């Protein structure tokens, strides 16, 4: 069972406990022909469902436009978690509300924290101490996390091992392709334009991977209040560095960005509001942007085009529809 790599001391302690208990616990589902795995966020659930293929059903808990920081569990969610044969989460405190329940469930079923499978050195620490959970913004790093999660899944569900080894390469290749695409597109931006201004600091890994400087209006959590100084300084920076666009995200309200743009324009900057980016949430399931690769394509293409770089309007795979997601960011 339970290929959970210990990320911290507490996790390690829980792990020992769960291993001890696991010896006495039968996992009814492991007898099941087709296990169900519940993933918290779609960035994890969608690629994993493709990696697992027909061998397992992967369900995603959080819908589009939902902020995982603030998500509130309902009975339906807990019931799904209880019934699932395995659980997958990003970890690193992204799913703050669910963590304690998932930890408790780990005595019964495999619980995989994708982000915590990575080497701690690769995790960005905000303020020097607090891990930044938004790893999926760096496709290379996320590939590693997915790969490790897939391996953990294969161990927990040996029946799925063949499917996993077969599908993994395909999915990871797609991700590698989008990574190369983004790198090339960002390269078309003049170095001075490689500044990503967004409403919350979800793009740390993206910036690190592609060499873009970040400017955030709010802190990393969606539950903090900004001061005027912060907004004003950001407007000033946007003016001084002649940044062409500021971006909003589908899972946070756009007010802060509007204020910054107004402030910058008052200083004489020619800045516009960029298309809404997907950060914590993805597009509706079934659409191109509802898939991990599509989400990255959307973000990168939107960013590069808005900042004056060169990128095809319909993205890497010709399936993007950037305009469609604009309505979500009103207000």
């Amino acid at each position: 069972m339970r290929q959970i790599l210990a990320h911290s001391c507490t996790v390690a302690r829980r792990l020992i406990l769960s291993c001890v208990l696991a010896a006495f616990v039968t996992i009814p589902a492991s007898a099941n022909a087709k296990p169900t795995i519940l993933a918290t966020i779609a960035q994890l659930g969608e690629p994993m469902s493709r990696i697992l293929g027909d061998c397992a059903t992967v369900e995603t808990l959080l819908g589009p436009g939902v902020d995982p920081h603030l998500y509130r569990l309902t009975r339906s969610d807990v019931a799904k978690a209880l019934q699932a044969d395995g659980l997958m989460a990003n970890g690193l405190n992204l799913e703050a509300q669910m963590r304690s329940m998932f930890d408790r469930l780990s005595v019964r079923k495999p619980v995989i924290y994708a982000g915590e499978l990575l080497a701690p050195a690769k995790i960005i620490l905000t303020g020097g101490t607090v891990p930044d959970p938004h790893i999926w913004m760096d496709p290379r790093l996320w590939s590693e996390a997915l790969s490790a999660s897939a391996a953990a899944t294969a161990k927990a569900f040996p029946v799925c091992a063949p499917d996993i080894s077969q599908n993994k390469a395909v999915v990871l290749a797609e991700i590698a392709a989008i990574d190369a695409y983004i790198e090339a597109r960002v390269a078309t931006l003049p170095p001075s334009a490689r500044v990503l201004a967004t409403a919350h600091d979800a793009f740390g890994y993206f910036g690190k991977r592609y060499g873009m400087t970040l400017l955030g209006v709010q802190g990393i959590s969606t539950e903090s209040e900004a001061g005027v100084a912060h907004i004003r300084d950001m407007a000033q920076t946007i003016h001084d560095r002649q940044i062409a666009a500021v971006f909003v995200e589908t899972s946070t309200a756009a007010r802060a960005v509007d204020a910054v743009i107004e402030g910058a324009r008052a200083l004489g900057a020619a800045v516009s509001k960029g298309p809404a980016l997907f950060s914590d949430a993805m597009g509706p399931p079934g659409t191109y942007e509802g898939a991990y690769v599509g989400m990255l394509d959307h973000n990168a293409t939107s960013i590069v085009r808005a900042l004056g770089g060169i990128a095809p309007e319909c993205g890497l795979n010709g399936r993007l529809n950037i305009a469609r997601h604009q309505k979500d960011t009103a207000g």
Partner: protein
Amino acid sequence: MMFLQLDFPAMLVALLAALSAALIGNVLVLRRQALMGDALSHMVLPGVVGGYILTGDTKSWSMVLGALVAALTGVGLIVIIRRLGRLDASTAIGVVLTMLFALGVVMLELADASNVHLDIEHALYGSLEAAIWIGPLTWQEALQPAQWASLPREIPMLLAVLAVLAIAMVVAFKEIRLTAFDPDYGAALGLPAWVSELAINTAAALAVVAAFDAVGSILVIAMLICPAASARLITDRLAAQIYVSLLIAGAVAIGGYGAAAWAAPAIGLPAALNAAGTIAVTGGVALAIAAGWRAFRRHQPGSAEPTPALNS
């Protein structure tokens, strides 16, 4: 199995929290301090943040302890400001509530604690649904004391709080009645008003903070008021009021959970509703029914007839 693991512990937590809140709520309603629950839910913020800053841990007793310290400070401030400024209770509550909450927000920024997912929601609105019992698979197993160790930690904590409150209520019943009804007479008998005010507010802060941690503030604030206020409309006897309020609290907790968990999906909603919110709404329904019943009974002829003396 689903019921035993998921619904039973959640209902038990909701029930225990509702009973503790209703118990102390009777006293607050009688003393016209019903808004204390709302005040506490905002005032604990600086304590929660302070607890985090001191220990660097986001989910530990330090934050509950910090919340308790902040709650007691806030309660003390309200009492002092009322006395010094001769302001009425609600005004003092409004001033102190906003002051302490804003202080907490500033501490959050200054300590850079906003970098953590120390979201206020989580600190204040603990999740009822997440209180699962992983241990037993059958009711027979559930009855074995060895399994009880795996009960959610909220349950023993709430049980302890409920027991302490119940004992305090029984022991100090006549003092509670005296100081709520006629504080001047109480002081003339040698029980100064500040003693009872301090004791009751401390008990309320203790009960409320413990329950916040388990079930969130919405459920607690609603359960402080709705059962006691409903019972007050139904009966004219204090002891009866307390028993009735406990009955209502129990029914509302179970009924509200049931409505959130089963009734909502049954009528075609896409998912179960938030249980704490639904329980609060159910409490409101109970209060509305009690108010309606009272109004109806008032219009009945003969309701003002003298009742025979009780030879108690």
